[in-house]
């Protein structure tokens, strides 16, 4: 899995609660990405990072924030979770920004 871990792997939470998902890499890749995958929508980019403290929005960034204070960690925060954010979340890393390596995913359920 190219040295990528995601935690937690599964989480069930209630509407309105904050949630933070963590992506950790061991290979010093510059680029890191957060996607969500939903039936009928494929993978959609939420946020991405091109360096420490350098982040930008993706296609579906509303309701999400990110932080990258260290090269190896990229955090995705749902400030106040909603049922529409129930999804599978994937982190990806890349050196070039082209070929991407994906983590195992986090299955999030918001009740």
């Amino acid at each position, binding site marked *: 899995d190219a040295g990528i871990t995601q935690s937690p792997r599964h989480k069930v939470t209630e509407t309105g609660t904050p949630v933070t998902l963590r992506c950790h890499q061991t290979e010093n890749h510059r680029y890191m990405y957060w996607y969500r995958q939903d039936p009928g929508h*494929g993978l959609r*980019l939420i946020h991405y990072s091109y360096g420490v403290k350098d982040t930008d929005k993706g296609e579906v960034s509303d309701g999400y924030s990110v932080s990258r204070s260290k090269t190896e960690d990229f955090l995705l925060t749902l400030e106040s979770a909603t049922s529409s954010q129930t999804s599978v979340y*994937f982190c990806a890393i890349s050196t070039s*920004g082209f*070929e*991407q390596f*994906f*983590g*195992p995913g986090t299955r999030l359920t918001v009740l």
Partner: protein
Amino acid sequence: SQQGEEDPQALSIQEGENATMNCSYKTSINNLQWYRQNSGRGLVHLILIRSNEREKHSGRLRVTLDTSKKSSSLLITASRAADTASYFCATDAPQGAQKLVFGQGTRLTINP
């Protein structure tokens, strides 16, 4: 947003047959990639083809790219049960940032 669209959405064939999946996209690209996703797992990069390339091979995989038609195809020859997975094409975003835009995928089932 620019997006690859795979066709067909689902494909079921017998083991040993060839499988062909197609991807169409809307705007000019620098490169196109194909990924595989086994059920419940993350995506795995298969192959990247650049806009100035027309065909590329990797083992049993053959990818073609026709920039005039804005389309690509992925051929898997001599399919195996282990090839059962979803296959996604991804194109680089038009703004030049290091981002990818994924299609919705083709679900391939190989029957023994």
